């Protein structure tokens, strides 16, 4: 089966301005959402307590009664009670947390709700405020450090404009994914952080493979027109880009649909991320090379210079080994 057959280069760069504008709008909108509406931090980052209950088979969880019984206790005044996945399971969230090791929030919930029916406490997560901010710091640190690591690696293997372009594409992808998280009110916990970091790796993967082809094109294609080289490289990798994105998309989509409630946020972020990541590696990362003023002729001259120097070094070494120097 063949979906994409290389015929002649598709003119991707011709439309780059329009896509650039679209992306800029999306990124700005996302930032706007992040700064105005803000993240819906879960307990991992905000601190607090989350309790998951499951009521007996026959019974629908009595939300109203649970709320009433909870508000009798001062600690649970601010508690929210929602169904989780199905109508037998309930999640109770509150901002308060207790420091005592012995009798904790879960134990108190058990005695508070004993009149609401037969239930099982399936999960109690409690994060103190100190830990929450520490995790937030560490999460941000992880993002920044991976970006720095990637910048350095790509600069060494390609050229600094490639590094800058790929990182800009990353920021673009992560921003839009975050925007979607805020827009849909997805609860931000550690797993979302993991998803964002995976996304970083994934979207970079896509970009690198296109860049690799551009690097090859810079060597092989005679015509020094950058847009032409980029168009040809993208067209030649298009089949791979779409295929891999599709297979990964399948997997993440099954995770989203069948992976269960707990992994939902993770899968959602990945679904958005893969779409945006694929788009950006074609329409954003590569034109950025042009916008950053990448010059084919001077790149080639530099490469030639590098090769020449290496040859000279080898010659010297050979002479040295032969004892003529």
């Amino acid at each position: 089966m063949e979906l994409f057959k290389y015929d002649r280069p598709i003119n991707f760069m011709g439309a780059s301005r329009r896509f650039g504008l679209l992306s800029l709008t999306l990124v700005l909108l996302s930032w706007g959402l992040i700064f105005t509406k803000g993240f819906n931090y879960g307990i991992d980052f905000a601190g607090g307590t989350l309790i998951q209950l499951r009521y007996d088979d026959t019974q629908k969880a009595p939300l109203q009664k649970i709320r009433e019984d909870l508000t009798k206790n001062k600690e649970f005044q601010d508690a929210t009670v929602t169904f989780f996945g199905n109508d037998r399971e309930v999640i109770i969230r509150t901002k308060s947390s207790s420091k005592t090791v012995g009798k904790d929030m879960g134990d108190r919930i058990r005695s508070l709700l004993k009149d609401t029916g037969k239930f099982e406490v399936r999960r109690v997560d409690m994060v103190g405020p100190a830990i929450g901010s520490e995790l937030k710091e560490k999460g941000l640190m992880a993002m920044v450090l991976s970006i720095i690591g990637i910048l350095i690696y790509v600069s060494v293997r390609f050229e600094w404009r490639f590094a800058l372009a790929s990182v800009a594409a990353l920021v673009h992808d992560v921003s839009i994914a975050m925007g979607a998280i805020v827009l849909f009110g997805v609860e931000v916990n550690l797993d979302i952080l993991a998803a964002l970091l995976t996304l970083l790796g994934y979207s970079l993967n896509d970009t690198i493979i296109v860049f690799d082809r551009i690097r090859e094109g810079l060597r092989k294609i005679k015509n020094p027109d950058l847009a032409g080289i980029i168009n040809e490289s993208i067209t030649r990798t298009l089949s791979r880009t779409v295929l891999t994105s599709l297979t990964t998309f399948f997997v993440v989509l099954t995770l989203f649909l069948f992976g269960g409630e707990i992994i939902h946020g993770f899968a959602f972020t990945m679904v958005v991320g893969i779409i945006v990541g694929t788009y950006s590696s074609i329409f954003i990362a590569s034109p950025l090379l042009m916008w950053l003023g990448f010059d084919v002729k001077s790149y080639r001259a530099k490469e030639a210079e590098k090769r020449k120097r290496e040859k000279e070094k080898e010659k010297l070494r050979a002479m040295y080994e032969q004892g003529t120097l």
Partner: protein
Amino acid sequence: MQKLNYRVVIFIFALIFGVVFSIPSLIQSKEGKKITLGLDLQGGLHMLLGVKSEEAIKSRLKSMAGTIKYVLEDNDIVIDGLGVNGDKVTFKVLDPDDIPKVKELLKKELPGTVILEQGGAFTVTLTPKEVERTKKMAIDQAVDTIRNRLDQFGLAEPTVAKQGQDKILVEVPGVKTPADEQRIRELIARAAHLQMMAVDEDRAARVYTMSPAEAKKYGDVILPDVKNPKEKYLLKAIPILDGSMLTDAKVGFDRNNQPVINFKLNGEGAKIFGDFSGKSVGKRMAIVLDNKVYSAPVIRERIGGGQGQISGGFTLNEANDVAIALRSGALLAPVYVMEKRSVGPSLGADSIRQSTIALVLGFVLVVVFMVLYYGIAGVVADVALVANLFLILAVMALFGATLTLPGMAGIVLTVGMAVDANVIINERIRELLREGASIPKAIEEGYSNAFTAIWDANVTTLISAVVLYAYGTGPIKGFAITMSIGILASMLTAILGTHGIYQMLMPKITRQKLNLWFGIKA
């Protein structure tokens, strides 16, 4: 068919290695190294505890006061107003002639302190270095003590480890019910601070009208009875001795068949206990555990042998837990919860089931798609994918790595990304074939052309996985581990392995059958 080449041999070895070492985990055998399931999958209790190390300083000062009292009385030196005030111990020596001797004695008995004296009034403080050391010791001791307690409780493989400077990570897998969990938490938190305290017989009658502040003025403290908190005792604040001199504690039964705890003191403790009881016949002595009075019997005669009993108010479970706590020692400083996660076993089982369904479904989709799209080349990629999956499991099992829920998501993602290498390679081969290259040339050049792209892509992904590992906690670390192993394994299976397979099959591939082999028309 061409002879085996080194690539295929390595691939076959890797596959055998993968299968052999992942079998114990897959069939959950008793023997062999297995992947441990994370707490989020098998259920259990995870806690990050903080230590109130200032409390350790307070109790250190208190026990210093106890030592001062005992040592000076032993040398017939009369003192007054002994007590702990903030961060210092103060007392007054009544006979000025004793001052040099007191200084000498204290210097010997209390290392790491600064002793000041002015007109017979002594203040003893800890040096800053000693304060730091005491705090650090309190944390280390808490780690050891909690580990001891959990080990003695008979739980399967609890983890207790110091995290950072001042935190303790506690992980207890396989907790069945919330009631069990609560019992474990209470065992961890129990201070298990045993004290023998003299009842202040001179003022005992006034205990119900006395304020705590007034009691403090007399060097006393008011403590409640364990069974009936309304009943109060007025006790001398400086204890006769404490649980640090305990050598053993066991559960026994008294005449009424109620559970009690019998304890033994070490030589020094037995001597202090004996001396005190000899001097205090007719008076009462309270046995105090965690600031509650368990009993306050009247001393009838000198008690030698250093044995005692705590009775009253125990259920059998409680008596067991208290005995464990006493044996493993008191917590020098109380602990508090900074983070707690507990997952019931049924939720863990649900998570495993759901993510397994997603994993299998995603896997099948990818496998079928590859065969449809690439023909036999797709089958080759799928073989590599299966080998990759086995390798991930085997390496995780050998390292004793923990599989968490995000870790399973990591495997699912690796499945998606591992075929990427083969997609890149196959596309390159197709390209070359279309340009009219010979089959061996197309395959060899396809691999070499694809290599830089795959390499650079994998290294950058690995960079973010490593950062994730360094900055992640618990389940997230598991995710980073499975991703990293998956990427490394895919280099072996998807690049080296498939290359070898093609080299072996090379003579069979013909131009006429390109549609079957690579899914393109000749």
